[in-house]
């Protein structure tokens, strides 16, 4: 069930709005310490389900993402550090 296809692996900033995906890995090294810390606080971690909900009106940045029971907004650049596998719904 819900097994990701390997070729579907993408990064969170490229995921379409409304597509649920599972976080495969986060490139913590690409982030500043406080940014990484905040992302962890929001619950971004391997295995959690995420879903982009809304995009900012200018340059489709930032992105509002559902993670767990929370909705958080992060910039496109940070979303790029999170690789995800879309779930088959």
């Amino acid at each position, binding site marked *: 069930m819900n097994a990701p296809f390997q070729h579907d692996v993408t990064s969170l900033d490229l995921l379409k709005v409304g597509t649920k995906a599972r976080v495969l890995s986060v490139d913590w090294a690409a982030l500043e310490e406080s940014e990484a810390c905040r992302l962890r606080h929001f619950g971004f971690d391997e295995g959690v389900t995420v879903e982009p909900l809304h995009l900012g009106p200018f340059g489709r940045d930032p992105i*509002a993402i559902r993670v767990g029971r929370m909705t958080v*907004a992060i910039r496109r650049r940070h979303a790029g550090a999170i690789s995800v596998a879309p779930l088959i719904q």
Partner: protein
Amino acid sequence: MNPLPLVAVAGSPNAGKSALFNALTGARQKVGNYPGVTVERHSGRLMLADGRPIELVDLPGAYSLEPASPDEEVTRDVLLGKQKGERTPDALVIVIDASNLDNHLRFCLQLIELGLPTIVALNMVDLARRDGLELDPKALERELGVPVTETVAVRRRGIPELQKALDDMLSAPFCGVHEPVKSDLINLQRRAREIATAAVVSETPVRRWTHRLDSVLLHPVFGPIILATIMFVMFQAVFAWSQTPVSWIEDLVAWLSGAATNALPPGLLRSMVVDGAIAGVGAVITFLPQILILFFFILLLEGTGYMVRAAFLMDRLMHGVGLSGRAFIPLLSSFACAVPGIMATRTIDDPKDRLTTILVAPLMTCSARLPVYTLIIAAFIPNTRLAWGVGLQGVVMFGLYITGICGALLAAFVLRRGVLKGSGSGFMMELPKYQWPLLKDVAIGILTRAQIFLKRAGTIILGTTIILWALASIPQAGPGQKQSDVSIAGKIGRGIETVVKPIGFNQDISMALLPAMAAREVAVSAIATVYSIDGTDEQAGATRLEDRLHHRWSLATALAFLAWFVFAPQCISTIAVTRRETNGWKWPLFMVSYLFVLAYGAAGLTYWTAVALGL
């Protein structure tokens, strides 16, 4: 005497912590700063059932004891007993959002590990139900091993029960371990998810309200339109609602100075009371209506959860100059007055983002500059029609606003690459669920802001106004002398004149620059005073100020004066508030200096260009 037992209210952001704190302590709160940082300390008193008072302190919201912002550092240090100027809490009230247990339980578990007597307030159970979530507080209590009370702080529900639990806890002798066992975040998060799952009785999938609202409010087209509409209404209200109270205050001040004039014999004392103290207090409190109305809106936007959405919509644009979306509302508020704008920067987490916003806020054309613009434009810019419905005067006025905005963006851009270099925390924010705040909480927030402004800024403003008065009145002019010539201010004015002469400013303007520091609009009355004091002909009073200016100033001078006022170093209220918000004199002094250089440069450039063009 032993200090009161200290109970800390802690929790993740958006758990409804402040509302719970308000519910427990009421409006009698003390607001101060933690020493050395610009993080506010809110505290209040609470009586236990047996009449013993305890002190309750509202800690800044934090996601964990691993800090990602100065606020979270304070929270961690207080909880670990390492915060300067704060004693270690004797007990904890942990506030968690019932509809977001997976996340909030992580911090909650970390706090319980501290080993202090602890109560958990399972807050916002109404929102959880709205989301179709049924929870079992007893199961949560078993898993956490501490008492759990259900509350809805914004509706003041469950508060007596929480107080009862607090009573029981503080009455019982405490013999827990005080050795914190530190689990790492990953394990805590895993455990949090397990407990959250165990505490959920049932979950009915429903279309969430917040998501439905966001589809409209964060819509790429409708979102910005709605934001613009809300901002428009806010500004209309700030100007429309403040007029009446401001006129009351002005009447009151006029009445007071009339009464004082009658009661006191003429002389230095009367002059000090009337022109110094009463005028000074007047200057302080005429700011209040606008500040309070702006804060009403800001707190309402904050309380409903819309504020973060506004930041979301504007982030990309603000990011372009190195600011975050969070800076949008403070900067916009600064069009009314920089004081509430600067005070509103508290919502910006990142210290550098916040400081940049504070430093550029004064470049937003505040309403106090309008009278100056209006006067000069009316006097020098012909009222020609450029196109249907578009007049030259209006275009000039618009140009001044745009110059201010461009100046602010440019200044932010330069500051972020110079003195305030370094990337900020970016833009990472939780979008909280929409809810309607209790008006009482909004009122408490407004009162707190008013108190801060009057106490901290008010004293500095009053003091400086009296100093300005003294400079203008001492020594007293003898018969046949002009006060503006003999006074210290007059001498300073002549000193200023040598500095500003190259940019086309005459003596009248130099004399007005110093009093204009008290408040922008004072520049107009100061210029008026110069002309009425020095006026020789009988008709002086009858001639309109615009006409007199028109005859005595060249167009180049007038344009330079306008350019000066776009950037001019700030009024004392702004400087005082900047001092409070940055916790020292370093940044207000920097702000005044860089604005002075900008103003001087802009005025000079305008003057020399105008002269070269033969104006």
